[in-house]
């Protein structure tokens, strides 16, 4: 049950991977309930995992995952069904607790645990449901309000346009196809311009145009933040600077990056 991490040679990032037993500088721990996400200071987000392990009851899913990601980097998590890809993403935003190890978000000189770091995180996953009785625009207005943001309708329409839902923002989500609903999840995740984007099966149910939207979202995220992508699709490995393969069963030598 060992995880493997390698760096793709054609990385768009100049950052150096400090994976496996990463040494972190002594950080200041934040007492703030909510990290500021609208500071004028340039984003300098870092995500550090140290000896992370997860298990369901007696069954160990993965263990010993250590790595550090900096702004501009993309980590792709791959592996067979049940290898713990989605579990890793849930640990990263505090929806589950790790069996062992630590997760720390370093942001503007403070360190945040996953639950406290949620304002810094945008999350897209097939099991993320939005309010079907509300329109796409009403969903975005609501989630902006609970995140203490007040975007104008023009900004929200623009966001819907970016994810390919231009002209459908006033329709109720119940009338959306599964692909359109998935696009709306991207709008939900990008609403607060998060420095960390967690994508579980990013292109599932999306058509070619939807996949192009995902390309653009990841490219934009690369300019200021971190992306972590869990996928089974080998075509999506190209998104990553680094690929973390979670292996439920130990097999052979690690595959070389392409």
């Amino acid at each position, binding site marked *: 049950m060992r995880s493997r991490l390698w760096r793709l040679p054609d990385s768009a990032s100049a950052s150096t991977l400090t994976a496996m037993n990463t040494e972190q500088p002594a950080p200041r721990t934040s007492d703030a309930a*909510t990290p500021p996400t609208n500071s004028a200071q340039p984003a300098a987000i870092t995500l550090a995992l140290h000896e992370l392990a997860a298990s369901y009851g007696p069954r160990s899913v993965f263990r010993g995952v250590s790595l550090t990601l900096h702004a501009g980097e993309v980590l792709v998590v791959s592996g067979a069904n049940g290898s713990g890809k989605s579990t890793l993403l849930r640990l990263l935003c505090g929806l589950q607790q790790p069996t062992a190890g630590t997760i720390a978000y370093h942001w503007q000189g403070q360190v945040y645990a996953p639950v406290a770091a949620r304002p810094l*995180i945008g999350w897209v996953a097939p099991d993320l449901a939005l*309010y079907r009785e509300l329109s796409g625009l*009403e969903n975005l207005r609501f989630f902006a*309000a*609970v995140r203490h943001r007040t975007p104008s309708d023009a900004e929200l329409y623009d966001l819907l346009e970016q994810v390919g839902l231009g002209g459908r923002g006033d329709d109720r989500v119940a009338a959306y196809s599964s692909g359109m609903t998935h696009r709306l999840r991207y709008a939900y995740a990008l609403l607060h311009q998060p420095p960390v984007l967690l994508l579980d099966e990013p292109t599932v149910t999306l058509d070619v145009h939807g996949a192009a939207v995902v390309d653009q979202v990841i490219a934009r995220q690369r300019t200021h933040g971190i992306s972590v992508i869990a996928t089974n699709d080998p075509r999506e490995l190209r998104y990553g600077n680094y690929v973390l393969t979670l292996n439920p069963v130990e097999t052979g030598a690690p595959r070389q990056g392409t």
Partner: protein
Amino acid sequence: MTTLQALLCGAWAIFRKDVQSELRTRYALNALLLFAACTAVAVSLGVGFLGLRRDPQSLVIQSALLWIALLFAALNGLSRSFVQEEERRTTLALRLAARPAAVFLGKFCFNLVLLLVLDVVTTVLFVIFLRVEIANLGLFVAMLAMGSLSLTTATTLVAAIIARANFKSGLFAVLAFPLIVPLLVIAIQGTTLALGGGAWSQGMPLLQILSSYAVATLVASLLLFPFVWEA
């Protein structure tokens, strides 16, 4: 924006969303109003003659019947705001976006408004069908409002606890009942007093007990809710 302002803005957004959803789906409102109407009609068929009597026993029975109707309607409907989030799997999106305290306060306000609407409808139906006469209307309204506030504070946290359980409705009643009994006793006493024309000075101690109960359960719920929400 201060922390408190942010919290209140989040709670207001959740309350508004719940009202908007409820007006479109009628998920809880229809069930509650139907329950209130059925109860009032059934009770009037059985003991409708009680409204004509003004003796102390009849006033106690009328008060008890009113609060039993409100209690069962509340047990039927107040858990739905959390249960609905869980059944539609929107809890995840809400957990990621909103603070637990804002979620609790938003749901609490929604439940309170729902129960106050139910109070009005049930009381009107009881007055019509049981021919209940209210001698001290001000005290009656105060008892009903304070009793409903206490009932909502006690049941909102329980609703959050049972939302992920399999046997939701049964578990809600079982967990909520021990919490509700003290306030129910006080509310029935106070309502009896108001129906019989008791003075405000007699009702004030009962209102104070109900308000203390509401404050205590609200504070306890605000402290405990984050653990329930993140469990």
